[in-house]
């Protein structure tokens, strides 16, 4: 079989030479390696991130807990077209569409909206295909981690967990993710 790395060694069950049977050269070689690690750890400290005190920052385009965006006037962008559900390889998204009634224009941007919108976070593989499919820029993945739970039912996130708040301070910034998506989808120059 062809070697991929050039680092593999063929193992032979040959008699050990006298030097090898002494063990000591190999022992000292090994101890030299551990000593190097020891000294390095003493001087520089290990690379460990000490978690609760120190948190690694997320990648700006981290794919986590979805958000359903509102537009500038606070209306839900989603029009329940179902393209995200179709695109989803994990079949995690379900929704029930409804027609916007008179007097609800300030709530929903389009005439059709999602009365129920659910993502099963246990099915979701956080691939981000729903974002790409969405024609209304309604759904985005964010850098929030879906919290753990004891009950499976609680992983089915409804609109109350997905739609962002109306108040400006409750809006969720997805500009980085948005930028990343536009760059990704731009035709190659």
């Amino acid at each position, binding site marked *: 079989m062809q070697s991929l790395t050039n680092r593999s060694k063929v193992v032979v069950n040959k008699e050990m030479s006298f030097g090898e049977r002494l063990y000591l050269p190999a*022992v000292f070689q*090994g*101890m030299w*390696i*551990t*000593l190097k*690690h*020891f000294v*390095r*750890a*003493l001087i520089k400290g*290990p*690379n*460990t991130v*000490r978690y609760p005190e120190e948190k690694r920052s997320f990648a700006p385009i981290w794919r986590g807990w979805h958000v359903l965006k509102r537009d500038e006037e606070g209306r839900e962008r989603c029009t329940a077209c179902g393209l995200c559900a179709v695109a989803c390889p994990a079949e995690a998204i379900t929704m029930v569409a409804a027609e916007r009634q008179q007097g609800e224009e300030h709530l929903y941007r389009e005439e059709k909206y999602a009365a129920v919108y659910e993502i099963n976070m246990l099915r979701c593989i956080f691939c981000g295909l729903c974002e790409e499919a969405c024609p209304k820029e309604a759904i985005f993945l964010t850098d929030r981690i879906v919290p753990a739970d004891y009950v499976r039912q609680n992983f089915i996130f409804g609109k109350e967990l997905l739609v962002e708040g109306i108040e400006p301070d409750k809006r969720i910034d997805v500009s980085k993710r948005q930028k990343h998506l536009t760059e990704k989808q731009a035709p190659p120059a």
Partner: protein
Amino acid sequence: MFLLFTTALLLEKSILVLALFTVTLGVAAYATLAERKVAAAMQDRVGPNRTGPFGLLQPIADGVKFFMKEDFMPNSAERWLYILAPGAFMFVACMTSAVIPWGTELTLFGRPVALQVADLNIGILYILGFTSLGVYGVMVGGWASNNKYSLYSAIRASAQMISYELAMGLALIAVVMLTGTLSLREMAEQQAGLNWNVWYQPLGFLIFFVCALAECNRAPFDMAECETELIGGYHTEYSSMKLGFFLFAEYINMFIACAVIAVVYFGGYNFPGLDPSWLGGLMGLVVMLAKTFFFIFVFMWIRWTLPRFRYDQLMQLGWKTLVPLAMVNMLLTGTFVLVFES
């Protein structure tokens, strides 16, 4: 007058014994922490750091944990032996420290005080005797648990300890031939300055060192424990402070073994410029401890570097390599002594 002298001697020795006991326990406790820290550093990790600054309270937390745990005893265990074994192991481990000279004689309140509990004229024999008793703790513990893994481990451990004791004894005989004494104090006194035995006995030192590793059940000879094959070996069935005793006694053993190495081969408390004053005496103690700690570090270093020997390899190394080597070493030393001292 005689009464006064005896009282003073008794007092002095009791204080010494107490101090030594405390120091031994303290060193053993902190050796457990040091072991984990050294292991961590060698594996590019952090090690325990949650209990106090740098995890310095970890040994206390461990002790509390051991006391709080359920003291479980298997139904089919040999009741009394099962209880006796950890205690015996611990006792034997602590006893060995009595003959080690920790420093020169200091003059306290107008009388010379040797930093040694008992200056036996057969100190080396005493140590060898007690280390061979150590095997009883492991064997009895493993056998009394009535568990096949423990029994295997106990058998292995006793075979290993007995085999390596042989080479150890032979290596020590060469030193005895060279120094002409069995007393550890005299041995230490002979190695003034840098006139250490290791320069005359490099091979003997190597053999002794390897055997000391085996005697202490330390990797790469931790046949008695073998977490991977024998699920903890002879203390599989032990829990709570009984287990704590076993683990703790192993660290005490390591401390004592390192002290013996330092005394027998590395001049004990001697260093160039040791003077008989107060300060010099204390410096000697510090030097002795420093040497001991260095060897403890080497023990740990070896443990976190080398994989365990297979059982047959272990026996082969013991009987076919170390014993003949030790005999050759003895022969050479004998010739050397004969030629140069007559």
